[in-house]
């Protein structure tokens, strides 16, 4: 093995390739790297193709994806893509809820207004902030609708066809109860729910927000485990890919409208946007930027998963034809 830094790094990159690739080419690729001292160019080349193979699992499919193992692998990639998109959705929605804390009940609320009524599309926003929020709401509605359209049939099918995975569904039910119960308790202790500031403004709401995010993550993990280990039909996986693509598009729209909101807020109320109590609930550039970063990560992950799932979806379509 070459003792150069590139020579030491290259075999590790080979080990990061997808399993089907390693089973077919791994041994000879490592042997080749022994014979030829890898350069940084080779490392770059291996890295680029590493990404390519993770995004295109069909490349290693035998005989244009006809062998049983290859088809199973591609369908597995399709299923994992849909689960990753679900996770991206959950992350983006948590960021969106945090973003809502900036707007709902915050200093921006008085600025959200309509300038009149459009003949066909409801109210006409009075300013950039209102327009961005209206578009953002549409993106969230689209994401939710697509997630329900794709996710509910998958979850129901996993429940019905795989009794062993039913225990996973206890987690979201328990999480729902655990998320709801503190609200009336807080109302009893601190007054009506409407007066509770849900914008990370007090230690107790900080704790609740962390609790809420933890419950959401646990629920998402349990549901994705149920779908990952449940027996799901090829047709259902093929169907669910379409809503998952819509979710990805909606997450990109959510990201775009959230960025647009920040630009509008900076332009229209610079003192409010640029100053403020950073990350403590008031509308600030820092907390907006944090939300944008989370949404960008979620949308990017969803895009990659969509590309990766496309091969499996194509195989499923061919087999159904």
């Amino acid at each position, binding site marked *: 093995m070459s003792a150069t830094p590139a020579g030491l790094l*290259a075999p590790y990159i080979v080990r990061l390739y997808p399993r089907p*690739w390693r089973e*077919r*080419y791994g*041994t*000879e*690729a*490592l*042997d*080749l*790297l022994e*014979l*030829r001292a*890898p*350069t940084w*160019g*080779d490392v*770059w*080349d*291996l*890295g*680029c*193709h*590493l990404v*390519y*193979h993770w995004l295109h699992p069909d*490349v*290693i*499919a*035998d*005989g*244009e994806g006809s062998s049983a193992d290859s088809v199973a692998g591609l369908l597995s990639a399709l299923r994992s893509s849909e689960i990753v998109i679900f996770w991206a959705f959950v992350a983006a929605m948590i960021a969106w809820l945090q973003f809502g804390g900036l707007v709902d009940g915050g200093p921006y609320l008085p600025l959200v207004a309509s300038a009149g009524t459009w003949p066909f599309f409801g109210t006409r926003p009075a300013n950039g902030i209102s327009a961005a929020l209206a578009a953002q709401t549409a993106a969230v509605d689209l994401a939710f609708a697509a997630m329900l359209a794709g996710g509910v049939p998958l979850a129901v099918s996993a429940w019905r066809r795989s009794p062993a995975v039913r225990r996973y569904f206890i987690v979201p039910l328990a999480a729902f109860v655990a998320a709801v119960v503190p609200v009336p308790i807080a109302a009893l202790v601190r007054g009506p729910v409407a007066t509770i500031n849900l914008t990370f403004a007090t230690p107790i709401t900080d704790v609740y927000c962390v609790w809420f995010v933890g419950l959401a993550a646990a629920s998402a993990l349990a549901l994705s485990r149920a779908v990952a280990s449940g027996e799901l039909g090829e047709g259902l996986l093929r169907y669910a890919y379409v809503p998952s693509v819509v979710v990805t598009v909606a997450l990109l729209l959510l990201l775009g409208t959230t960025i647009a909101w920040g630009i509008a807020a900076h332009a229209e109320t610079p003192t409010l946007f640029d100053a403020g109590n950073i990350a403590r609930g008031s509308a600030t550039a820092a907390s907006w930027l944090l939300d944008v970063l989370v949404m960008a990560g979620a949308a990017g992950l969803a895009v990659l998963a969509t590309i990766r799932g496309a091969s499996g979806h194509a195989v499923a379509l061919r087999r159904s034809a």
Partner: protein
Amino acid sequence: MSLTELGPFADAGLLLLASLAAGPKHGYAMLADVEEMTGVRMGPGTLYTTLARLQQRGWIEALPAEEARRPYRLTEAGGEVLQAQLRRLERFTASGLSRMGLERATGGGGRA
């Protein structure tokens, strides 16, 4: 059947098919051969992605491994694809040289 089916890997596919036209080779031998033929240093990632694409279309096939090295050979279909592409390149080269007013080199590196 055409090399354009390989999309961004068409050029690498042509080089590997041409290398295998001289007989079965394993990966390292192909890279060395390509570098000797063209001066192009092909990366290992490009090599194995292109080999997978060529295998997927049945233009090459893997032979039994010799220890860690697996040789590949050109199939009949692969030979036809290679020949068709080389003919196209030959016509392109002749046309290009003719348009430049240059006599086409016919062996041994002739010039205008």
